């Protein structure tokens, strides 16, 4: 099945792979495979795409696929081509070799050049994200004014929360620097409620007791000096927040494409207790399907949550639930569905998270959210609550949220339950792994014994911070680390995990002046100093019939080029533009925007070299300034006017060179 523009409905690079949000490469791959179709064999080099798509025993590939090493995709393809030919099976099978820019521009260039020279029938696709990337990234989560952020997403100038050493209060301070500390030995420090990973020389604020009757004081100690039993300062409760004002979303109205009637509902403009409680229930039991214009809740008749769900729907959206049956309650409204989807809680059971903005809410609204959660997948054991979820990320973000709410939080536990076991109110259809987290409200202390309490907790009475004993310190392996410099207080609050930061190392295809971990934006040298290797021209000089550039900004062009390349009886080459939000430090929803800007600013022109004749497919008469492209990416944020001008000149010169060849036979054809 194909749509009107001829794009295949079938997926051969299936969803469920582990690529990062906004990964341009995954998007390009998906459409390459749609264009190539099922009769295709893929040989892929080591890299992000291989890692995210084939974690044994899973695979996202619905075509035969092979991976060998970092630099040999073209050589493996040579073997496949020769092997099929020797057995008389070469006809009617497409053969694609794929590698990132490292595998194509650098380490694997020899193998690529050799395979082209030998004239094997295959298409080589270089997926170019302009550095050696390897995403397996989760990062430390930092408390900022705008909620929880990954450390890698924090920019200079962002406001982060810090502990004031003068008055022991929670204060907002400006982040003035971010450092890459390289690979360091990591230690994991655990208290009853918190877990953090840090390097051996990372300082923590520790209580130094000078004996009874004498004043104790807070001192900084490095992780290596810390011992189990030491008391460290931890966050107890965040600053009182404000109700969140939701950004406007595009609502459907009658007369839109395929919209014949519309159910009038009230779309909340800002967060409220009712809405948060309903969202808590949604996270546990709900789903949203915009294409079916519905929000659904799985609350069987007799379930304690059924009545509250119906009441809350009425209070929040000013309409009654539109449909209900034995097991589910539905609200059929395209706009309500769009609204809930826009809030960022995730869709499926395993992908749910607590979005950033929830961290900035007033405590009452946070409590309402927790109430909703507990109504769905929680239960009470004694004085503590237990919340169950299949989403690890949800539990991690929930744990951090609870840490800002003055409750005791335990570790995240994991269990695998056999088929048929009852979990909360449902029997499992198959054996599954889920996690749970326990927490309980803190009891108040008797103010009569103030001095004793004060001795026990140095920060007794402090609204935002408290002292916690370290339970354990574990030595972990070497990991890449980042650090922040914070104005005034020199501290910040990081409660999450540093698992792996991202490898982003310079390649021959890295864009000039981009900052990577091996060509950093230094005081003396501002990022990569060299131009991009002009690989497509080098490839075209091999005398092959077809070389082209393509981008996810123009999928029809991409589809045409893949199909043209595969029809060539010898070798052909495609250069694909791939945005990498993690490596480029751009927003994951800017992938398409950047891809378009790359064309509009002439940074990545779309062209093809067919039988040696150059043709620019999408001419850019009035280019946008390169600055518009650069400023969306953190990897260029260190640049001043002078460097931006140099990049503009570089881009102009490259485009002029291409334009001069346009329409002319610029390369010899040997095959």
């Amino acid at each position, binding site marked *: 099945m194909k749509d009107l523009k001829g794009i295949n409905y079938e997926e051969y690079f299936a969803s469920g792979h582990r690529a990062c949000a906004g990964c341009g490469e995954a998007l390009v791959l998906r459409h390459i495979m749609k264009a190539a179709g099922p009769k295709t064999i893929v040989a892929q080099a080591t890299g992000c795409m291989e890692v995210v798509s084939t974690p044994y*025993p*899973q695979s996202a590939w619905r075509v*035969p696929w092979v991976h060998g*090493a970092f630099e*040999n995709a073209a*050589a493996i393809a040579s*073997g496949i081509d020769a092997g*099929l030919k020797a057995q008389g099976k070469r006809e009617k099978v497409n053969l694609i070799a794929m590698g990132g820019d490292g595998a194509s521009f650098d380490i694997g260039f020899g193998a690529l050049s050799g395979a082209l020279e030998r004239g094997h029938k295959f298409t080589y696709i270089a997926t170019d994200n302009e550095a050696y990337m390897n995403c397996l990234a989760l990062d430390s989560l930092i408390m900022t004014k705008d909620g929880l952020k990954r450390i890698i997403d924090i920019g200079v100038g962002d406001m982060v929360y810090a502990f004031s050493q003068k008055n022991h209060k929670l204060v907002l301070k400006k982040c003035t620097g971010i450092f890459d500390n390289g690979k360091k030995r990591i230690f994991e420090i655990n208290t009853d409620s918190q877990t953090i990973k840090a390097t051996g020389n990372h300082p923590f604020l520790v209580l130094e007791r000078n004996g009874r009757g004498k004043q104790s004081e807070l001192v900084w100690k490095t992780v290596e000096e810390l011992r189990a039993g030491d008391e460290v300062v931890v966050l107890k409760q965040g600053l009182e927040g404000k109700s969140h004002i939701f950004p406007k979303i595009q609502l459907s109205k009658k007369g839109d494409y395929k919209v014949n009637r519309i159910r009038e509902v009230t779309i909340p403009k800002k967060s409220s207790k009712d809405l948060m409680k309903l969202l808590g229930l949604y996270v546990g039991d709900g789903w949203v399907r915009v294409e079916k214009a519905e929000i659904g809740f799985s609350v069987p008749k007799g379930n304690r949550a059924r009545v509250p769900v119906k009441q809350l729907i009425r209070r929040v959206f000013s309409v009654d639930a539109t449909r209900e049956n034995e097991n589910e309650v539905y609200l059929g409204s395209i706009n309500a569905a769009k609204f809930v989807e826009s809030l960022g809680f995730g869709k499926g059971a395993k992908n749910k998270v607590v979005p950033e903005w929830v961290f900035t809410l007033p405590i009452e609204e946070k409590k309402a959210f927790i109430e909703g959660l507990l109504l769905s997948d929680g239960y009470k054991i004694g004085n503590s609550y237990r919340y169950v979820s299949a989403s690890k990320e949800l539990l991690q973000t929930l744990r951090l949220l609870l840490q800002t709410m003055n409750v005791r939080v335990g570790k995240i536990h994991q269990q695998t339950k056999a088929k048929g076991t009852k979990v909360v109110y449902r029997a499992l259809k198959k054996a599954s792994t889920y996690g749970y987290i326990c927490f309980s409200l803190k009891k108040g202390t008797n103010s009569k014994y103030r001095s004793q309490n004060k001795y026990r907790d140095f920060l007794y009475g402090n609204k935002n911070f408290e002292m916690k004993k370290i339970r354990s310190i574990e030595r972990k392996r070497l990991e890449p680390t980042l650090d922040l410099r914070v104005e005034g207080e020199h501290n910040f609050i990081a409660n999450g995990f540093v698992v792996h930061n991202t490898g982003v190392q310079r390649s021959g295809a890295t864009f000039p002046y981009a900052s990577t971990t091996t060509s950093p934006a230094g005081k003396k040298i501002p990022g990569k100093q060299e131009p991009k290797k002009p690989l497509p021209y080098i490839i075209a000089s091999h005398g092959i019939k077809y070389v082209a550039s393509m981008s996810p900004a123009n999928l029809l062009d991409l589809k045409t080029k893949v199909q043209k390349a595969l029809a060539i009886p010898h070798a052909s080459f495609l250069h694909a533009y791939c945005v990498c939000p993690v490596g480029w430090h751009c927003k994951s929803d800017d992938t398409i925007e950047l891809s378009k800007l790359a064309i509009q600013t002439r940074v990545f022109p779309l062209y093809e070299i067919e039988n040696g004749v150059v043709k620019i497919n999408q001419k850019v008469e009035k280019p946008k300034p390169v600055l518009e492209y650069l400023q969306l990416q953190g990897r260029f944020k260190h640049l001043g006017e002078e460097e931006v001008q140099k990049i503009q000149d570089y881009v102009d010169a490259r485009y002029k060179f291409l334009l001069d060849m346009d329409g002319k036979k610029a390369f010899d054809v040997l095959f």
Partner: protein
Amino acid sequence: MKSVVEASEAVALAVKLARVKVCPMYPITPSTHIPERIADYIFDGEMDAEMIHVESEHSAASALIGSILSGARSFTATSSNGFALMYEILPILSGMRLPAVMAVANRTLAAPINIWNDHSDAVSARDQGWIQLYAESSQECVDTMIQCYKIAEDKKVSLPAMMCLDGFTLTHVFENVDVPEQAQVDKFLPAFTREDTLDVNNPKTFGPIGFPDSFMGFKKQQQDAMTAALDVIKKANSYYKKQIGRGYGDGLVELTDMGDAEYAILGMGTLCGTAKAKAEELRAKGKKVGVIRLRSFRPFPVKELQAAVKNLKGLAVLDRHISLGSNGPLFTEISAITPELKLFGYIAGLGGKDITLKHIESVFTDLEKGKQSREWLM
């Protein structure tokens, strides 16, 4: 059919007889005559196969991944630095359980650059999951090459195999070789069939990432396959003997004059020929000496070796390679399995240094005296 050929051509003939379909080749001395002879066959139309003129040994090994997964029996040959350039792909081929077969014309590793024979290329890759068989004569090269496919493609094994032949001392030496008939080989070695191929009608994923939860399981399976290979090598040897009429010891170890021997020399490859000649001479003088030739270095036949040395008073191990900073690898491994035995280790024949009858005589004298006079035969 008997003909006088050099061992390189003997290997090429065996490749043709095994009906190999794909040969990605990159020439390097002293293995070069092998691709040259194969090219002769293919370009003259005597052999129905694809030759890929790869641009490096790294790509030769990589192309084997593709060609075997496409379902074609494949072959390559290399030496020395070319072998070292392939190194990255060796554990990938074995980890993916692909029955590639490679002839290694043993040559030392630079520097100083040197084109002559020792075992430092292949022996230094002993941990990479390849079966390693060492041949002594041109005749054995033909026979072992054919057996290598039988062993590697056995379902219990499914591992790559290399046949090592000494550079120059074997590759460039002409000998009388009895080449088996095509019909005999076809009977011994049926056509290559494989269930797991890159088939668009039955898509499969090859070479996925193995996280820590699964990785060790893969390695355990490879080790189990190596253990199973011991028996498979033995069977291939005896089956070949029955069908075509030649065998080499039990396939793993070849014993000469070991029946009542008190002292023996253990080694691999052509040096054993010299040792056998000397032992024969000493036997005539009434000395009870013998020679143990290790044919299968990987898998390492512990039981067979222990049985062979059981009644010895002393054993000398000749290594054509040294693990710098330690010892000869063969010596180290033998000493680990024969704690009671009086054992002397010698480093010999590095970078093409001749191992002479005199050297061998001095080793036997050392054994008899019970005192090792020197460690380096140079």
